[in-house]
């Protein structure tokens, strides 16, 4: 074998391999069943055992640039809530997150309504969920929601008066919220702690990008975040937990999990890079020995 040539291989071969190992699993998925790490499991378990009258609130605090990592999380969270009949409130603190929230809600409600037979099964806007929309500044939203949410969002994203929505009766302020999950690529989760949690004691969870996860571990360890989803891996683990739950309750719908799907690409890409490193070193040692 020509080790010397392998050492100075045209990098385009490497690019081609990376391209293929990422793309093929997206088209032909070979699902790797992810095993949930403790922070993901804690978030799932909390939401799963929350009193039925408490709502889940998802705050879309990210922009399209981090969508590949974060959108699967919000989708999985919505699925989880609807699967157990939990009421859901949705808002966005990043104005570009509005479109992402709308996409996620449209997707997940369609998934559930496609299998709905009765009014009870259906997911209905204003009854089972409310999309408050966006407001600024963040501090006013975070504090105002502790007093009365309809004051912060007098009309919802679709222009309906929030006071007139059936769901408003059940979600008035933080007291009615079982957990609020902020999904963000910025420092916003910290503001949720500093304002909403220290002032009103609302329970928080977060979903963050892989790169920023290290910054949030201290808050997870101190219990300020009940759980955390970090990067695509976190999203994939949550998707799997939700899929298992749906299957258990006889709803084996095989919904598309962008996180899980991407995880096989991620694993393949990581293994490929590691294989390259190993190969490079074998070639390196082989040529060095020959030189001696």
């Amino acid at each position, binding site marked *: 074998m020509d080790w010397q040539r392998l050492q100075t*291989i045209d*990098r385009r071969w*490497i*690019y081609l*391999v*990376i*391209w293929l190992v*990422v793309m093929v699993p997206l088209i032909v998925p070979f699902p*790797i069943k*992810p*095993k949930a*790490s403790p922070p993901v499991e804690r978030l799932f378990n909390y939401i799963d055992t929350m009193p039925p009258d408490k709502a889940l609130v998802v705050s879309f605090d990210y922009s*399209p*640039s981090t969508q590949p990592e974060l959108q699967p999380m919000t989708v999985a969270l919505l699925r989880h809530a609807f699967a157990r009949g939990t009421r859901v409130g949705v808002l966005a603190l990043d104005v570009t997150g509005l479109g992402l929230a709308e996409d996620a809600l449209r997707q997940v409600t369609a998934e559930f309504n496609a299998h709905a037979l009765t009014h009870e099964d259906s997911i209905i806007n204003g009854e089972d969920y409310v999309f408050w929309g966006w407001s600024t500044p963040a501090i006013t939203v975070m504090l105002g929601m502790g007093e009365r949410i309809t004051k912060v969002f007098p009309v919802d994203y679709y222009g309906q008066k929030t006071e007139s929505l059936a769901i408003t009766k059940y979600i008035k302020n933080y007291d009615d919220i079982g957990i609020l999950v902020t999904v963000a690529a910025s420092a916003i989760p910290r503001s949720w702690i500093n304002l909403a949690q220290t002032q009103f004691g609302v329970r928080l969870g977060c979903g963050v990008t*892989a790169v920023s996860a*290290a910054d949030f*571990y201290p808050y997870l360890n101190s219990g300020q975040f009940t759980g955390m989803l970090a990067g695509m*891996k976190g999203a994939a683990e949550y998707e799997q937990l939700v899929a298992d739950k749906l299957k258990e309750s006889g709803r084996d719908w095989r919904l598309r999990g962008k996180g899980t799907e991407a*995880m096989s690409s*991620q*694993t393949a*890409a*990581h*293994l*490929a*890079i*590691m294989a*390259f*490193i190993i*190969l*490079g*070193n074998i070639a*390196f*040692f082989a040529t060095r020995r020959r030189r001696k």
Partner: protein
Amino acid sequence: MRRRLPLFLVFIMGLFGAFAFFVPHPPVRQIDEVLRNDVIRIIGALSLVLGVGSIIRHHFIKIQRKAEHWPYSYITIIALVVSAVIGLFGGIDPNRPGILPTQVGSFSFHIQTIYVNMMVPLAATMFSLLAFFMASAAYRAFRCRNLEATLLLLAAFILMLGAVPFGRMISRHLPAFAEWILAVPNTASKRGILFGVELGVFATSLKIILGIERGWLGGGD
């Protein structure tokens, strides 16, 4: 005058910038806020004209000299002018249209539409090239040449293993070990580097304010 006035200004402004950090009294705070929010921003925004002038000139020279690939210079100039006209006259806020219509039938060419459908995908794609470049950089650089290079390689390897489900299959403790590397040796080295960097920033800033370092003045007298 030509050198002294700028040096004097740097000294005064620098002194004030540092002073404002320690003094919260209203006149100082207010001036500081005005400097930051108005003066620096306006001066900065006006400097863009210089930059745009430079890029247009750069491409005009190419076209004039018929330098290699000169026809592409037209693309930059035309794209620049067209998007600037759309943005300046069509408005930046979709809800407050400018004097230029930005919609033909159902087709919108508002500057935000251009931003979302051209700049965002271009930026995201440039950014995603890193997936490939990390692989090729790792392949070339991560060789066990000596102890330092080997440690670089091992640390990267462990972190990569810890990131995928495969790592847990090798050892249950691997993800935790990866986290430890990040939290302990990594923190130590970053902090050590940071001490030097901050002192370098401090020293350079002081030298500029005191006029010891004056390379920024450029040539001439």
